[in-house]
């Protein structure tokens, strides 16, 4: 169980400033997700916490102890890599036991811990195999198992599901959520670019943009009260609709944001906006209608079930309720 504090942490590679001053307090036992577009610095931030990269300036504390100069193994962390990073020449068992053996653990105790982790992850029957004899999903479980046996204070995940196919991604996501529940005392930090993973796994999400923290909060806070146009656009799927200029002025703000699920098709006379259906995507459970209201981007409307509207139809739109309207000023901040 560890609380992690970052105070004014910066990281530069030569002239390239990747992390530009991050203050963050990660609570003990929390599941924190770093999310953001590629190049925002989320993986670098994770590697700084791991100790794989040196901090250029600022301070990092684990349980109030400064760890800036501690090596990864001294920090009591375990890390699961996107590429699994298994030792290709070692069996699954040896991969998981390697770190423990180095720590001069007793072989009996090592075996017990490896077997317990293997059972938890349902990879017990593969312990004698080499990584190359396993599927991607199984390899990722081994990587997670290797992290579990270390019984770490802090679990770090670097986009662990990116190399898995869609179905496996969902299944493994559920397992990671369960793992967090079972290992209640470990702090987990998880990096992803997928906002669905962020929403489903996190206790709190930290949205990063361009080396700075954009907003930290629970998934619902981010969804309901985004602190900027960027967060509003990044969290939620499909993406939030933004209206500006003449389309925004009736509602009294520079930019107006309404999520696709909070828009309603209205009679032509009562609509706030109106336009023509440009494209239609039928999902079965939902239909996404893409509507051209004359703005720079198409507006997405999410209708439950299979919509009867076709491309070319005229349609008027209105927010479901006033509190679903997000108002932003010119700087992109909420009003």
């Amino acid at each position, binding site marked *: 169980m560890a609380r992690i504090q970052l105070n004014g942490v910066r990281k530069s590679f030569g002239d390239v400033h990747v992390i530009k001053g991050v203050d963050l307090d990660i609570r003990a036992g929390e599941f924190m997700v770093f999310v953001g577009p590629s190049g925002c610095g989320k993986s670098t931030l994770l590697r700084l916490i791991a100790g*794989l990269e040196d901090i250029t300036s600022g301070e990092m504390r684990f349980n109030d102890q400064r760890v800036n100069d501690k*090596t990864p*193994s001294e920090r009591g962390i*375990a890390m699961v890599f996107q590429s699994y*990073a298994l030792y290709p*020449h070692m069996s699954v068992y040896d991969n998981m036991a*390697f*770190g423990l053996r*180095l720590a001069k653990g007793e072989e009996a105790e090592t075996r017990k811990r490896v077997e317990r982790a293997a059972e938890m992850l349902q990879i017990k029957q593969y312990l004698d195999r080499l990584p190359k004899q396993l599927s991607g999903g199984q390899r990722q479980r081994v990587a997670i198992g290797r992290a579990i046996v270390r019984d770490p204070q802090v679990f770090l995940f670097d986009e662990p599901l990116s190399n898995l196919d869609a179905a496996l991604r969902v299944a493994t996501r559920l397992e990671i959520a369960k793992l967090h529940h079972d290992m209640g005392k470990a702090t987990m930090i998880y990096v992803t670019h997928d906002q669905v993973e962020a929403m489903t796994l996190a206790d709190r999400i930290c949205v990063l943009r361009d080396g700075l923290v954009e907003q930290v909060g629970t998934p619902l806070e981010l969804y309901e009260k985004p602190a900027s146009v960027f967060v509003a656009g990044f969290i939620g799927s499909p993406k939030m609709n933004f209206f500006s200029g003449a389309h925004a002025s009736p509602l009294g703000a520079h930019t107006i944001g309404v999520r696709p699920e909070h828009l309603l098709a209205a009679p032509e006379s009562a609509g706030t906006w109106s336009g023509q259906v440009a494209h239609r995507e039928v999902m079965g459970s939902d239909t996404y209608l893409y509507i051209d209201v004359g703005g720079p981007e198409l507006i997405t409307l999410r209708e439950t079930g299979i919509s009867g509207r076709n491309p070319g139809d005229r349609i008027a739109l209105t927010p479901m309720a006033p509190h679903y309207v997000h108002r932003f000023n010119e700087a992109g901040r909420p009003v």
Partner: protein
Amino acid sequence: MTAETSFSQAPPPEATRRSRLTAQRIRSAWIFLTPMMLALALVAGWPLFRNIYFSFTDASLTNLGAAQWIGFDNYYSKITLPSGREITSGLLVDPEWWRAVGNTLRFAFLSVGFETVFGLIVALVLNAEFKGRALVRAAVLVPWAIPTIVSAKIWAWMLNDQFGVINDVFLKLGLISEKVAWTASPDTAMTAVLIVDIWKTTPFMALLILAGLQMVPKDIYEAAKIDGVHPVKQFFKITLPLIWPAVMVAVIFRLLDALRIFDLIYVLTPNNAQTRTMSVAVRENLFDFDNFAYGSAQATMLFFIIALITILYITLGRVRFDGGK
């Protein structure tokens, strides 16, 4: 006519198409292979066959056409004199030849052994990131890029007993009390040859091992860092097992080269029993002493000895030429 009836009348179209495709693949494979097999038969197969044939004859360089078949006499023959004394002759009982075999083996194992260790060290250094790495990588290759004859001559001059720079420096440093004939003295000739060969071929070894090192994914080292693996242990438990297939292939390349060593010894230490290798002995008999048939027998034996060592190495070392994938 429905689709089903048309299926039942025609032969299964899927099967015929696939087998025609397979036949075409096999045909094109042969088309690609034939030129190489022809070239190999001409430049390797035919000379080898002729060489083995001459080893069973009494051929002389002056008139190869007049060669007569004499069976195994070049390898082993026994004559009983009227006095009852038995005289054996031939390659199998020739002490000169077995001495050359011994020299070759000693040279091959020592040079390849040192080259592997030094090559590994150089490769590890070149694999690390530092300023000017590209320049150092290029510079390291210089000894390998110089033709052997040229570097042998350079070293012969440096090792020269009268005018050599090495004697001069060692004398001034007080390491030796009088000038040493490095390449001629029986005590130092083999060492001199070894030093020059190791100097020359370590870069080649380093390059092959470096290629193996660069195949090791970087993230494994990060996982090792998190596991808290000590650098020395990291090398022996992670790096070495992963580059082992590359090292084994590099060693076999060099071993084949070293077992056939000729040019360096011919230039650096001519006519020296301490360094005379199989190839040198073969050449002497073939062209210098006009024992063409006997030289052919030696060349045949050389071929089989190298083949045997290679087969042993590949089987015992479980070398995999696919890079261990």
